[in-house]
């Protein structure tokens, strides 16, 4: 592994965070994909020795700060997602493009479900199925990134 990768990780997470901080509103806010989590998943797959559950937790805390909710909600959601990403990381490298897309979608969904549970415990209402739109948008973004030539470690691309 390149030692410079850590720099890339920090830089990409920073960019994703800025994307999160953009003044989204209305419908765009509802379907906004979770940029930060996508970047974390990418690095969890590519470099699990550098980006692991701990990084996911720390970044989750910063997302908590940005959303203004109770501390620890995003952190827990990201931690659990990162755990699933890391524990199947070795198999994931063998997946082809479509399988990987599905897997990323599942990971995004896991984080949303955990978050929904935590929010429901603290008295929020489920807002309807549009709540899961960010997962679809996230996987779409991942797909576009793969099409643009981002190497996400999928097996059979280009063969």
């Amino acid at each position, binding site marked *: 592994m390149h030692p410079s990768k850590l720099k890339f990780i920090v830089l990409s997470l920073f960019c994703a965070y800025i994307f999160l901080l953009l003044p989204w509103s209305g419908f765009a806010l509802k379907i906004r994909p979770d940029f930060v989590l996508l970047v974390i998943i990418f690095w969890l797959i590519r470099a699990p*020795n550098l980006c692991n559950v701990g990084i996911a937790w720390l970044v989750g805390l910063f997302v908590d700060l940005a959303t203004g909710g109770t501390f620890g909600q995003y952190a*827990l959601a990201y931690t659990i997602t990162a755990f699933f990403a890391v524990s199947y990381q070795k198999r994931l490298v063998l997946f082809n493009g479509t399988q990987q897309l599905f897997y990323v979608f599942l990971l995004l969904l896991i984080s949303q479900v955990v978050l929904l549970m935590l929010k429901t415990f603290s008295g929020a209402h489920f807002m309807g199925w549009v709540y899961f739109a960010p997962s679809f948008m996230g996987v779409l973004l991942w797909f576009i990134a793969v099409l643009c030539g981002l190497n996400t470690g999928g097996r059979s691309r280009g063969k």
Partner: protein
Amino acid sequence: MRRFNHKLEQQQAPAFFVRGPSAFARLAFFSTLSLVLMATDARLQYLASVRQSLQTLIHPLQLLANKPSQIYRDVDEYFTLHNNLIDENQRLKQHALQQDIALQKLNTLAFENDNLRQLLQANKAIVESSIVAEIMHVGRDLFTKKVIVNRGETHKVVAGEAVVDATGVIGQVTRVYPLSSEVTLITDKSLAIPVQIERNGLRAIAFGHGRDNTLDLPYLPINVDIQRGDRLVTSGIDGVYPAGLSVATVSQIEITPDSPFARIVCVPTGGIENHRQVLLVSIPQVEAMPESAIESPAKLDVRPINAQAKPPKIPKPIPPPKPNNTSKPHASE
């Protein structure tokens, strides 16, 4: 025994790569940490200062993220048509003229009101100070209705202040950071606002609905005198919102035979998601009332003025506004 130990060690998988603790151990550790954080943040107040300082840290990032849309707006404004500007100017002038006339009347009325108050030996009316703020962005949490405004602790904003725009109340300041503050909108599920129906003075409490941009008026009996189109204004008895500000209009009344309460839906009058500029109105402060004003029963007629005081400061002879407030002293005795 020794042999057994030896055997156990042999069974451990050889580590090819040094990766620290296993994923599951990390999951357990960080999940516990998150849960502890959540409990601390939800139940105790320790993390407020941590949140404030971290918020100061990300404030520059927030400004950076707001830059593109701000530049777009500036460019857009720069290229507005000349005609539009002339139109707007004319409209504003007309508006200013109308308001000037109203203001002249107000001056006379205020003077007259002062005189009358002096005659009655009543308190001075409460004068609220206010700060103009601009909405930086809408809250990112989809489960709550919040906005972030660009005035904070350094601008002397205090948590609890009412937030008003040109057309009515839009919410309340719930968290203050050094350079910005968080406003919970009246449509949020956790916010309640004491209101009064303008037509007949009936008091009620409006709750945010949470999902749609509406307000609910719960716990009103089905025979309550309320009609579609009734305007709700702040009653001012909570000591937070100044009295008489427009809050919402009744849009729907549903009466079901199996419920003793009517379901009343109201639409907020303030441009909850339209305006950029808002006014943060400070919490009204009044000095203790002079004794003479309390004792003579005639002065009790000036209820609305006294009622604007903060609840703890209301002297005993005046009944507190909410029924559950009155029940508390009995419970403790």
